[in-house]
Structure formats: structure tokens, C-alpha cells
């Protein structure tokens, strides 16, 4: 159990266990959003000729859904490897910002925990881990970033993603449309609740509005995944400009 940072001392193990439970509970509503997309990705990959071994290899080693959908979309036989690597970087470039935002809270932790923790950093695990670290930091916890909470949350999402994509590859084309029963709305719903948790008043949210407008416009005008970096970077630029004015 070294990954949880607990010792053989049962007094130390008890709070770690409650942190694990807290992390698993936090992950449960997110699984509703992940399951249909996992099945869909697996089915699309099998249509493109991925075997049932290759699908979990992709989703287990890469573990970044957006880039996996993009790669499958662009997949040819043989694959255009440089194009796929470039698109993967483009779609996942938001991780650069996410890791930077998390960096101050990871500062006190040993690298042997931080580097695995970053492997499992996806949108959901990052947002929940960051929100939790900010809360604990405000409460002056000795270590704001809770390793057992984060890992149990992130691993729950991870195993669900790998299992569902594999199941999707096995079931193949019999998978229907994620839009049936409104499953596709689970994804924005999760993100909106995460955003509410980051709300610091309308003024602080002005850069978000800039991001939304630019990302939405880019989505309508430019094909591909450019809307993510375009929206994120314009929001940052807005935050930079607003910070200057308010001084």
C-alpha cells in the first residue's frame, strides 16, 4: 500500500481508508459520463480494425479520451504516425496548463508519487484533485494534496475507461448512439459542476467567458480540435490583460 502513503500503523491507515472511500464516492457520478463514451470509442476503434488487445493497449497507455477519439477518427491502415502524434499533442496540450496549476500543491510530495499521479491526470481527476487541494489548503492541512483520495478517484475512472473501451471493441457495431437517453449530456454536466466549484465571482470568471466565446466560435469555423487550445489560450490572455487593469 505504499502508493497510499500509509504505514502499518492502524491509526495512520484509518484516515487513509476514509480518503479512499471519499475518492471512490467522488468518482461514481463521473462514471455515468465515461461508460457510454468508452463503449463508443471501443466500437469505433474496432470498425477501424483495432483488435481487442490493441484497444486496451491504447486506452490504458494513453488514457486521454479526446485524443483517442481524434486518433481513431484519423486512423488509416497503415496509420499516419506523425499526424496522429501531432493531433495527440494538440488535443492534450491543455494538460500543460493543468499540470502547472497543480504544481504548487504537489510541491511537498516525493517524486515517486508525483510522476505516477500525473500519469492518471485526466480532466475529471485533475479538477477534483485541485478543488480538494485548494479546500484543504484553505483549512491549513499539513499536506493539501490527498494522495489516497486522488489515486482512488483517478484509478476508478481509469479502470472504468479501459474496461468500457475494451467492452466496446468486443461488442462492436451493436453499440447504439450515445445520444439515446441523453448520455452525451453527462459530460458537460460533470464539467459544469466542476466549474461551479471553481467559481470566485463574475469578475474572476470573465476569462472563462472569453474562452467560451472563442472556443465556441472556433468550433463552428475551424474543423478539428483547435477549439480547445484556442479557447484556453484566449482565456489566459484575457486574464493577463484584466490583471493589468485591476492594479
Amino acid at each position, binding site marked *: 500500500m505504499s502508493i497510499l502513503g500509509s504505514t502499518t500503523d492502524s491509526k495512520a491507515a484509518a484516515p487513509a481508508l476514509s480518503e479512499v472511500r471519499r475518492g471512490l464516492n467522488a468518482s461514481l457520478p463521473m462514471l455515468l459520463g465515461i461508460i457510454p463514451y468508452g463503449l463508443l470509442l471501443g466500437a469505433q476503434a474496432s470498425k477501424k480494425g483495432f483488435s481487442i488487445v490493441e484497444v486496451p493497449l491504447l486506452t490504458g497507455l494513453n488514457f486521454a479520451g479526446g485524443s483517442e477519439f481524434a486518433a481513431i477518427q484519423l486512423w488509416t491502415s497503415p496509420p499516419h504516425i506523425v499526424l496522429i502524434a501531432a493531433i495527440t499533442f494538440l488535443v492534450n496540450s491543455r494538460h500543460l496548463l493543468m499540470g502547472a496549476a497543480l504544481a504548487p500543491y504537489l*510541491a511537498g510530495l516525493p517524486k515517486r508519487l508525483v510522476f505516477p499521479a500525473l500519469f492518471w491526470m485526466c480532466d475529471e481527476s485533475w479538477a477534483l484533485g485541485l478543488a480538494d487541494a485548494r479546500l484543504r489548503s484553505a483549512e491549513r492541512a499539513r499536506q493539501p494534496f490527498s494522495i489516497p483520495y486522488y489515486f482512488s478517484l483517478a484509478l476508478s475512472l481509469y479502470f472504468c475507461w479501459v474496461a468500457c473501451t475494451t467492452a466496446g471493441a468486443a461488442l462492436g457495431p451493436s453499440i447504439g448512439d450515445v445520444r439515446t*437517453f441523453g448520455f452525451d449530456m453527462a459530460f458537460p454536466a460533470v464539467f*459544469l459542476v466542476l466549474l461551479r466549484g471553481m467559481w470566485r465571482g463574475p469578475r474572476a470568471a470573465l476569462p*472563462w467567458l472569453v474562452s467560451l466565446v472563442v472556443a465556441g466560435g472556433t468550433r463552428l469555423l475551424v474543423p478539428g480540435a483547435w477549439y480547445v487550445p484556442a479557447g484556453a489560450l484566449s482565456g489566459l490572455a484575457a486574464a493577463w490583460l484584466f490583471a493589468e487593469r485591476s492594479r
Partner: protein
Amino acid sequence: MIHPLTLVAILLMAAVTYSTRVIGYVGLRNRALSPRAKVVMEAAPGCVLISVIAPSFVADRPADLIALAITVAAAARFSMLPTVLIGMVSAALLRLFIP
């Protein structure tokens, strides 16, 4: 079962993705940020999240946009699970009634 070129593509994707995950941390680990940079970094998480879901805000079906508005209102009040359920149910129902 595993095609060699597929394996190369997957390993390259995994390496690229992991590098995006560690670069932000490694780059800022031992650096003190200016107050202005701190303001920018505090805005960054929200900017990333809202950009990822921006396509929902420019959906072309009215039913999807109304369902999204309901989901936004739900997210302002409720916790994760009720919000997700309200979002899914309202999208499913509205699509039935508004073609």
C-alpha cells in the same frame, strides 16, 4: 493481434500524452510566480474546462441548447450526481418532443 505499426503509433501517443502531463509540473515546480502570473494560473483551470465543453454551447439543435440551459441551472444548485441525472433526463425528453 497487435500490428507492429499500430503498436508504434500507440506508444508514441502514450509518450506524447505523458509528456504533456508532466511538463507543466516540471516547468513550474521550483519557480516563484509573479502576482500577475498567479492571477492567470488561477483562471487557467476554468478556461480549460469551459473550452472542452464549448461544442455543447454551439449545438445546432434547439432541444440540445434548452437541455444545456437546464443543466447549467442544475449545476448552480445541485451536486454532481443530481446534476448529471437532470442533464441526461432533460436532454432525452426534450429530444423526444422537439425534433
